[in-house]
């Protein structure tokens, strides 16, 4: 039956057809995996956020001056009641004079520039950080910048960094792993020892050193993370996979029909390692997003805005220990890192179900 279908067609068309059907089948399998689909939905959500921000700016719905994640400024105006704090503590309301003024009140002593103000007057003030309102969905930070816009900017950074470093890293490790498996001998020994060497270096301190002698921007960090990841342990895993492919009959038959070493490597071995490489890539996006956030969190990166930086700022400003009173400074950024990294991980799980028949249910 199948033979008839492919009759009278050029080999190119046939292989195109087969590829299309394979893709369809894989997609069906992927759709079966609840975890994979959950991950895909999460990624789609953040991708939407990342794309939405420039659109909002371009269409003028958001003005740069107010909503720019780095230099924008806006904060809520509130009316505060002017009170005079008692001289002796503790009182009914306050234990020390640091506690005074409390919410919606302002200490008369603070208003030295306005000597005409009396106790009981209301005073207009700018509230920073401002809680969420219709204008700022997730409120503003301590500098009056819109948190939601920062989250969007952060997701752009995360996608750029995660995908770039993962592609670079997996590209390097796939190439090296295949070369090690295919050529063996000295090349193999050299490459394996090289990844041993990279594995021996403690990664976080290493990134510290690198950030100390080079100002790291998003691009630089992506390349550094990609190279370190690409030279490390994944070369070993890819190599063992490529070794399994190398002994398959179709590689032998390609050799017998006179294919050159390079051609066999690129057209027969590499494509069969690709699924595993794709899997690695998805998983290493998770790692890259986490690394960036940790470095930003430690204040080592020269980045204008990122999720890690947001948490860093909320920590250095002391909001993280204020409990949930300033939740919009603490929760959204941390959750975003966790969710997006988790989303990529879940997609990896789903792909694992597709490529590894032993994990499949049926």
């Amino acid at each position, binding site marked *: 039956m199948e033979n008839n279908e492919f009759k009278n067609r050029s080999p190119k068309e046939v292989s195109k057809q087969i590829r299309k059907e394979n893709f369809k089948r894989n997609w069906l399998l992927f759709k079966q995996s*609840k*975890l994979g689909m*959950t991950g895909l939905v999460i990624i789609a959500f953040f991708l939407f956020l990342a794309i939405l921000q420039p659109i909002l700016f371009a269409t003028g719905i958001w003005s740069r001056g107010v909503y720019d994640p780095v230099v924008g400024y806006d904060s809520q105006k509130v009316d505060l009641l002017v009170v005079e704090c008692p001289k002796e503590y503790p009182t009914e309301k306050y234990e020390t004079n640091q506690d005074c003024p409390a919410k919606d009140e302002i200490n008369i002593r603070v208003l030295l520039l306005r000597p005409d103000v009396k106790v009981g007057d209301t005073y207009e003030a700018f509230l920073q950080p401002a809680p969420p309102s219709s204008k700022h969905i997730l409120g503003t930070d301590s500098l009056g910048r819109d948190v939601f816009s920062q989250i969007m900017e952060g997701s752009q950074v995360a996608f750029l960094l995660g995908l770039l470093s993962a592609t670079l890293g997996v590209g390097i490790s796939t190439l090296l792993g295949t070369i090690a498996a295919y050529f063996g001998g000295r090349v193999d*020994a050299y490459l394996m*020892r090289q990844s*041993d*060497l990279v*594995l*021996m*270096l*403690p*990664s*976080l*301190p*290493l990134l*510290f*050193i690198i950030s*100390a*002698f080079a100002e790291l921007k998003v691009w630089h960090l992506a390349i550094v993370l990609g190279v370190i990841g690409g030279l490390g342990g994944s070369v070993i895993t890819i190599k063992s996979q490529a070794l399994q492919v190398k002994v398959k009959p179709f590689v032998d038959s390609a050799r017998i029909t006179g294919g050159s070493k390079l051609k066999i490597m690129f057209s027969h071995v590499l494509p069969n390692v690709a699924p595993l490489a794709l899997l690695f890539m998805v998983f290493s996006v*998770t790692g890259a997003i*986490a690394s960036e*956030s*940790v470095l930003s*969190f*430690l204040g080592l990166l020269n980045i204008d805005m990122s*999720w*890690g930086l947001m*948490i860093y700022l909320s*920590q250095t400003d002391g909001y*993280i*220990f204020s*409990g949930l009173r300033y939740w919009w400074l*603490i929760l959204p*950024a*941390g959750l975003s*890192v*966790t*969710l997006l*990294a*988790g989303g990529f*991980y*879940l997609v990896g*799980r789903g792909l*694992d179900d597709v490529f*590894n028949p*032993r*994990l499949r*249910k049926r």
Partner: protein
Amino acid sequence: MAIYILKRTYQLIIVFLLFLVLSYLLFNAIPGNAFQSLLLNPDLPKEAYQRVLETYGLDKPLFERLQLYIINFFKGDFGYSYNYYPKTPIDLIAERLPRTLMLFALVNVVSFYTGFIVGKILAWRRGSKSETWITITSVFSYTVFYPWFALLMLYFFGYKLGWLPIGKFIYPEKWYDAPFDSDVVFITMIKFTVVATFIQFLAFIFTRNIESLTNRKTARLVSFVLLLLGSYFYWGSGSALEQRTYAADIAYHMILPVFTVTIVAFAGTALLTRTTMMEVLKDDYILTARAKGLSQKRIRDRHAARTALLPVVTSFIFTIITIIDGSVLTETIFSWPGMGQLILQSVTQEDIPVAMATFSFVGILALVAHFLADISYAYLDPRIRIKSQG
């Protein structure tokens, strides 16, 4: 075989040498040096600064210093710390290592054990609703942004509820008139933990051959109770009695970091176990086991989990490499003065001898872990055991 081992050893030495050279060059690539802050002091003459550099040999050209360092390294001389002058890097490591080991050995064992059990259950309940939910929870505990999570835990348990101490590994006021150093107590605790784990392990091995399942269970329970009694007597007598209150103080400070790191770390093992176990469940001998009428629990624990353990154990041993690496963040957040903080300090303050020593320590640890992974694999898989004998 002998030739293979020789060749491998030779390669290892080369790799280690390269590792030393690379690390040394990296540290020296950081602009400035450890004593630059002296220049900021206007009362200090320039010559004094120059003399300090000469004392530490920092005025010599880079290549000469590298050569000297490597030669001295193999003589067992690691120099002196720049910042803690009379102390050598070895002194510092000896002081910090027990603290990190105690904390992370415990974390690793606890998280490995819980992870393995959770993973086993996940694979077994495949397709059920609870599986999906537990998996999603573990994925998010695996990918949670760790510093953020740790800070929230600190806030919640340490600050809001006030149950557990915030940071630090001891209450200094308690130790004010202590007759001994905290390190002594740490070492006693490590010794105790190692011996207790070993005894429990032995009990497990020896009861494995008891034929009746109920007898086996009782025997294991009895051995566990005996172990508890034994530890009660240990801490109630001799030198351990004096250290007891101090050990309790350290243990109290350990609860929060152990708990936090375990939540983050168990998920990795759980997810890996789930995958390997699911592969194993497709094997034919699982079908045989089912055909034999064995109980689900027995098939899961004895037939599937035992084989699935192999790759999980290997990955567990590889996490030993990342102990020190991972401790950097944890120790910074929980102000736990261990190896992680030492590495961080030495790198940021350019205390090159200490940084080099800690880096080489991590490197050697990585090499040992590789070795251990091979050995344990051979122990757990009889197929390999036979081959290596023959």
